[in-house]
């Protein structure tokens, strides 16, 4: 699947396109098909995201898994600071291997 990600313009948080808006949870990403780039430009213009880009991902029992390790690390947080990742609040977030 293709999913859309970027950073929140104001906070810088990593965000994922969830169909009707942006989510901090990669698991809520939806397949954007071939609409990703148009969506990215529109959302940037609406000041909701900065640096938006489309990536490959797959969905399995662990949730939505970005194809590239860089986006998997973005999705969860630094691997060296588990306390600062999504995990403490959401034990099921990104249950895949980095």
């Amino acid at each position: 699947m293709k999913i859309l990600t970027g950073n929140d313009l104001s906070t810088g948080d990593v965000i994922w396109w969830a169909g009707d808006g942006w989510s901090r949870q990669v698991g809520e990403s939806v397949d954007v098909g071939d609409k990703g780039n148009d969506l990215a430009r529109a959302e940037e213009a609406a000041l909701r995201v900065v640096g938006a880009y489309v990536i490959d991902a797959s969905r399995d029992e662990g949730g939505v898994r970005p194809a590239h390790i860089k986006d998997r690390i973005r999705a969860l947080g630094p691997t060296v600071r588990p306390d600062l990742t999504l995990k403490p609040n959401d034990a099921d977030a990104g249950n895949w291997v980095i």
Partner: protein
Amino acid sequence: MYRYDSYDQSIVDARVEEFRDQTQRRLAGQLTEDQFKPLRLMNGLYLQLHAYMLRVAIPYGTLSAKQMRKLGEIAAKYDKGYGHFTTRTNLQYNWIKLADAPDILAELATVEMHAIQTSGNCIRNISSDQYAGVSADEATDPRPWAELLRQWSTFHPEFTYLPRKFKICVIASKEDRAAMRLHDIGLKLVSRDGQIGAEVYAGGGMGRTPMVAPQIKDFVPEDEIVSYLEACLRVYNRYGRRDNKYKARIKILVHELGVEEYKRQVEEEYAHMKQLGLNPPTEELDRIRPFFANPAYEQGLADEIDRADPAFALWVDRQVAAHKQPGYAIVNISLKPKGGIPGDASAEQIGLVADLAETYSFDELRVTHAQNLVLPHVKKADLYAIWQKLDEAGLAEANLDLITDIIACPGLDYCSLANARSIPLAQKLSERFADAGRQKDLGELKVKISGCINACGHHHAGHIGVLGVDRKGVENFQLSLGGSGAEDAAVGQITGPGFSEDGVVDAIEKVTDLYLAEREEGERFLDTYRRLGMKPFKEAIYG
């Protein structure tokens, strides 16, 4: 320490207000990201993997207690409670909100700090020796020069859009603790017939084409240093390869022209400039110098240290260096605890070191390019009290220049340019080699790790260097041996095919085992490597 005059303060304050306005316009949609990005970068604000990242300049690595305290407060108030000290002796915050950035810069300005010129193709933060002004072997204190160059390079209109970033280092000791020859320009202040002047080195650098800077001038008298530098930069600014980002650093120009031709062009430019009388007035240097005068050292202090506590004695042997003043010592504070993140310090640790600097070190501290901290003027009689406080805060690791004193860039855990993670590897190595006796036996051994070819982690200059690469989407690590950033500067050689993360830890262990088996009396790892060459090490690793 230098204190801002009203001119310094007013340009920094004006910059904060300008950036506040730019940020507001960005958040209101009046500036696009394409328009805003160069403006935020000029103020040290990057967009990284997880958030905005702010890089704060620490001029020549020197901080007052008050400045350090402010850095800790900002970490607690605006970030997630920590900061990362870098090989450029700056501090990076990893979790900054755009809307907060102007307030952070305003807070920094209250303690004479900023993030100007910590990004972009301009002259970056000037680096220097962390023992400047306190080591016995220096020709003169390099800090007044570093400060003069800071002033000269700040907003220098001609050098704001160079072909590429530009890094200058000033030292004045035989021992090079600042990787001087791996800078675009390195200055080594020396004394000749009673006159101070500089040896000038140009065209060093890391990145994808590492080079050790050749000497281009053996002596520039002190009152001509700035205009000589001006000539060096002019030639680079005119002929540096703007057509290709990967060839745009001065090292490529010097290499392509040849040292002699680059020198000739600089001399020609310099001869022209000399007539223009562009040297800064010597009064400015005279104004700066007293800021770096010796603090009011007490006289007649005892030189003995009470070494009754064995853990303390171990720490003293490793972390404490000789000071020029009898009764005083230089304290190195390790930011490399076992299993820790090299260069990271929590807000509380930053606050503690600020307090220690205030109470015990005449209000002053330093940041080193090896991502450690230094208290430069400590009474020997106070060492035990300092050690106890550091120990309570997890800052009493005794590993200066040993195998676990690893330089590591943020790598793929934080950096958007990375190919691989650097920090987890540093952590695994520090655990594998944690045994204090083993580390001590291995002696001086500098391990440096970069997460991509930009080489922020100085891997080319590591006795043992590791470079993270991307092999079909999987992290892979290339090992190199024999580099050095010190006075015997050299670029390391790659051993051969790369490794997984665990594989490279094993390979490094094999390398150190061979060293232990083969070393001769008094040889450091680097010496043995240089004597034996790559071959036996390669056999030990891949054999």
